[in-house]
């Protein structure tokens, strides 16, 4: 009733090698919700396992499934349960901790598609055409979504915005 499992060993090896990377992507896509990230990774891996004998590039397939799955879940729920975060760290906390908390909160305020584009473009350094293929949309949509997502992120993270502007200015001055 369940079908063959001849590829189980290869699947295990693939998961062992790649899941440390993909749990990081899942964590970003779910705006820092550890449980939701585990669900997303496991469900995406299960869907990859379903097609294990048919797919040539399991990593690309898993990436595509994960991004589309997250957007689909978000559409169905119509809201996103952002993980509870501690209040912003006090004055004696390190700057990195402050920034991490602010960025995580900001991710939770983006749409799932904005998060997906942001992670693909800026965290994974994927080209616009690759992002379009992964998400099943046009390059124009990727470009506009990336622009809006980044602008929104910077608006929600003043610290990051200041750094971004200064870095950009420094780059232009060189």
């Amino acid at each position: 009733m369940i079908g063959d499992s001849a590829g189980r060993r290869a699947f295990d090896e693939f998961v062992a090698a790649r899941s440390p990377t993909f749990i990081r992507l899942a964590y970003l896509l779910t705006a820092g919700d550890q449980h939701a990230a585990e669900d997303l990774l496991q469900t995406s891996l299960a869907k990859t396992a379903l097609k294990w004998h048919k797919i040539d590039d399991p990593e690309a397939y898993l990436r595509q499934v994960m991004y589309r799955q997250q957007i689909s879940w978000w559409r169905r729920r119509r809201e996103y349960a952002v993980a509870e975060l501690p209040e912003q760290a006090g004055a004696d906390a390190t700057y990195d901790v402050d920034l991490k908390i602010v960025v995580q909160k900001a991710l939770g305020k983006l749409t799932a598609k904005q998060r997906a584009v942001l992670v693909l473009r800026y965290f994974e350094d994927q080209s616009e055409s690759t992002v379009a293929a992964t998400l099943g949309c046009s390059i124009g949509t990727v470009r506009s979504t990336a622009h809006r997502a980044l602008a929104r992120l910077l608006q929600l993270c003043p610290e990051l915005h200041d750094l971004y502007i200064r870095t950009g200015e420094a780059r232009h001055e060189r």
Partner: protein
Amino acid sequence: MNADELVKDALGTVADEARLPAGVAGAAWRQRTRMRIRRTATTAAALVAAVTVGVITVPSLVAPDDPQVATSRIADGIAADPGRATPVQRVAAGRVTLTAYASCAPSTSDCAWHVLDPDTGRYGPTPWGWVAVAPGGRTAAVLEKTLPARRIGLADTAGGTVRRWIDLGRAAAGSVAWSPDGQRLLVTTYDFDPGLLDDPGDVPDERNSRTGFAIVDVASGEAAFHRLPGGPGVRSDLSWSPDGSLIWEDSGERQRPRKYYDLTGRTQPGPAQESLSDQDAGLSPDGRLLAMGGRSGSAPFVADVASGETTLLEPGGGHPIVRSLAWADDTHLIAWMQESGDSSRYRLVLVRVAGEQEVTPLTGWTDPRSTWWPSFTSEP
């Protein structure tokens, strides 16, 4: 560091907080198994005493080469067909009877439904694309071979004659489930064939296959349709809650495995305990034990609702339990067992979850070249 690298670095500091769960490969593989077998169509029904083949004494079920098998006996008896890869003779335990099953060829995804004839106690082939047997075991709601179907047939399980058709008009049915009282049908509607084994394409399908559902009053034939789109590209059948007041779907989410709706499709909280179960079996008939499991690499388990104490389903013998399907009574589960050594052969078993776990095979090991998945009917 340029501006883009700054954003990457900021995202990286968030990603650094992620923790990789243990056993994710095994848990994903089990979820894949679950996706393939889909949710078993369990309906609440009263078993007809005359149909019962009778209690089969347990020693006759125990194969000499199955050291993990222990004796087990429950009040309403056991009927098993443990020597065959696909059942031919009636399979039942306690309140639950295997009333139909779909036998499928994984290579072609072509499935053939078999239904239990209550007069002969044997399963026979049918021409249908979906079968759900009603309370009492004598009537089956059937859909024609090509899904989604525009009408529902009410067929006699003894002989297979269709006694009546219920026209669904513009709606197209991909599955049917009987309400616990046997008075209504829950029809999950789709806009293209959702398939039975898995999604047909080699790439993720973005289409939202499920369109919604219909509640059909069997006596009058009247149907009320409600829009409730499902996830992309996969079969996502809806099920009745045990009391027939709500319907639910498998959400695929750990914190809320079942998502509940009222009979018009509005989201509802769902029963407090039952909604936490990610196993088909759900809550035991007496409401004391909840079938859970499989996450983070662990075996399925049962949780005591009152105390919170959990018991892993690990009966020993090297053959793991992979999924809890239905409660035969308050302390026995019908489950899929996997042959040891990472085999792709499985069998239905009855597991006693109280005290020392005992296993009784209900069917033989499946043939890896073909697959079948069960449709149960259970008494309230």
